[in-house]
């Protein structure tokens, strides 16, 4: 799978871009604030229908056109797959109340849902901010899991989207029920069932992914750190999906140790998780009613990174956190290639400059192992001459891209 062409209109500082992309490695050099991150953000947005950094889609629309009567932004990709070309495009259009934007997704010119787009052009994006994967919030880690899994597994993406809709309905119902009136058991039944049905698929898949991630990432981590300590990854769910509380259990099952040490099931079947989730929902009904929201479920999941006994989030040095995050990204590439069936496009946003020689070498190895990679830098010196010679070189200045060279053909 290759990204052959990218078109941008009014996306961030790209008022108009038509860019042909070559297979292999492309390196985009530019000074600060010229459009390097924006370019990779655009590609990631087309791949996942979400921005890796923006809080709202409105930020993505070029701010000079926002004052125009009908401001919009458009991103389009031509993707080559098995000798066939697919066209993906997303248009951001002003919604009713003018400060928001809605997105219109099309695949080969036909209107589709955003979740139909995800996975058609899988990418893995490396950013300097990736350290947040280890150091940041549980929400950032769930997002990492979701973006990786959604690109590999359309059923995961559908289950997650249904789960989120069901969760909003159930939470709204809990708030209404708390105000009085209605029979909680009757009215909640459908939403509990649906939550358990969709949530169990999400949890079973997350456990599967975290197991694979641990295997791959710990290998990478040994190489990256040159150390002896094994990186461990643990699934930290809000309830133990392997047990079922008794129907009339008085005490609510404690989750403190679960949140510390996590679980590590070899495999979880959705059926098993479903029964457990449903039983936990029933046992937790009065707590949910009191809180006016659903306290248990994959929306409360977390992922722990450990060296020995220590959670790197709390005890890791910045450098240790960075190394673990890099190992997780590299592992993601391998898993996506093997389990997802297609090698992802690697996107790296100015990550070389802050790494030592060993780590750079590992990244270069990853870059050259995939069919296509697009990398940005402020400084050509980040790359060694042989690599530069085999790359397509471009520069970016104020939202304008210029091609400097085609790769040197190997004799």
């Amino acid at each position, binding site marked *: 799978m290759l990204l052959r062409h990218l078109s941008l209109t009014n996306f961030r500082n790209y008022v108009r871009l038509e860019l042909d992309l070559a297979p292999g490695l492309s390196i985009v050099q530019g000074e600060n604030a010229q459009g390097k991150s924006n370019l990779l953000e655009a590609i990631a947005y087309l791949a996942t229908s979400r921005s890796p950094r923006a809080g709202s889609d409105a930020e993505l629309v070029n701010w000079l056109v926002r004052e125009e009567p009908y401001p919009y932004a458009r991103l389009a990709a031509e993707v080559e797959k098995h000798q066939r070309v697919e066209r993906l495009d997303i248009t951001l259009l002003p919604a*009713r109340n003018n400060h928001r934007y809605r997105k219109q997704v099309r695949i080969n010119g036909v209107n589709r849902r955003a979740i139909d787009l995800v996975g058609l052009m899988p990418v893995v994006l490396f950013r300097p901010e990736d350290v947040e994967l280890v150091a940041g919030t549980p929400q950032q880690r769930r997002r990492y899991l979701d973006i990786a899994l959604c690109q590999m597994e359309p059923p995961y993406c559908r289950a997650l989207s*249904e789960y989120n809709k*069901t969760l909003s*309905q159930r939470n709204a119902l809990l708030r209404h029920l708390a105000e009085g009136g209605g029979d909680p058991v*009757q*009215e909640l039944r459908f939403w509990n069932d*649906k939550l358990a049905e969709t949530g169990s698929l999400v949890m079973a898949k997350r456990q599967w992914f975290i197991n694979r991630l641990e295997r791959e990432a710990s290998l990478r981590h040994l190489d990256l750190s040159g150390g002896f300590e094994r990186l461990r990854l643990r699934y930290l769910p809000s309830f133990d999906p392997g047990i079922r509380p008794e129907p009339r259990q008085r005490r609510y099952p404690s989750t403190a140790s679960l949140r510390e040490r996590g679980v590590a099931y070899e495999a979880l079947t959705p059926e098993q998780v479903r029964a457990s989730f449903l039983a936990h929902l029933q046992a937790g009904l009065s707590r949910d009613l009191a809180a006016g929201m659903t306290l248990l479920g994959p929306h409360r999941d977390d992922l722990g990174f450990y060296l020995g006994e220590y959670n790197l989030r709390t005890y890791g040095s910045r450098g240790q956190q960075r190394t673990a995050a890099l190992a997780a990204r590299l592992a993601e590439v391998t898993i996506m290639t093997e389990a997802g069936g297609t090698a992802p496009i690697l996107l790296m946003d100015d990550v070389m400059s802050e790494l030592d020689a060993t780590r750079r070498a590992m990244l270069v190895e990853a870059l050259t192992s995939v069919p296509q990679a697009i990398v940005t830098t402020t400084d050509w010196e980040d790359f060694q001459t042989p690599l530069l010679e085999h790359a397509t070189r471009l520069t970016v200045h104020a939202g304008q891209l210029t091609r400097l060279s085609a790769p040197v053909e190997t004799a």
Partner: protein
Amino acid sequence: MAMQVVAEPIQRLIEALTRLPGIGPKSASRLAFYLLRAPAEQVQELAAAIGELQESIVYCSRCQNLSQQDPCEICSDPSRDMHIICVVEEPLDVVAIERTGVYHGLYHVLHGVINPVEGIRPEDLRIESLLERKEKEPIREVLIATNPTMEGEATAMYLARLLRSGGVRVTRLARGLPVGGDLEYADEVTLSRALEGRREM
């Protein structure tokens, strides 16, 4: 102060149209200018139809459908099968099912579906009157034809539990309708198949 660019009556119509579902400022002004230039009869006919709408329409006290008479035409038609009730979300769903010509029973219109986020709970729907009908009328089957959306399924499940007693069969439209789709937009062949292939709940 904004300058008055468009004459006041046009502005007023545009504003009124914008309040309608599915109509944004752009289509509202297109409609307004269309009406401005349309033949007078056409505009008067439209104005009259809108004016009479709320005066002449009532809820049928039996099936809760909108009608010009109470009971409605379908409820007072002796040739209809009195043993089966088809439960739908909206009056337009009745129109869609009638168009197929394969269903000859009665209807019950809920006027909505359970949707907690929108604040719609069972007591906001016409469910009470459906339960009364089940007691009073010689019903053998209730066919639940809410849309195959999450909210439609939630409503179907909720109703099934309330209705499933006293020898009444509760059935559901067969799958085959596009998931998340509206009955209102299903083509006749698909809808006929869904009606004929209904399954026990």
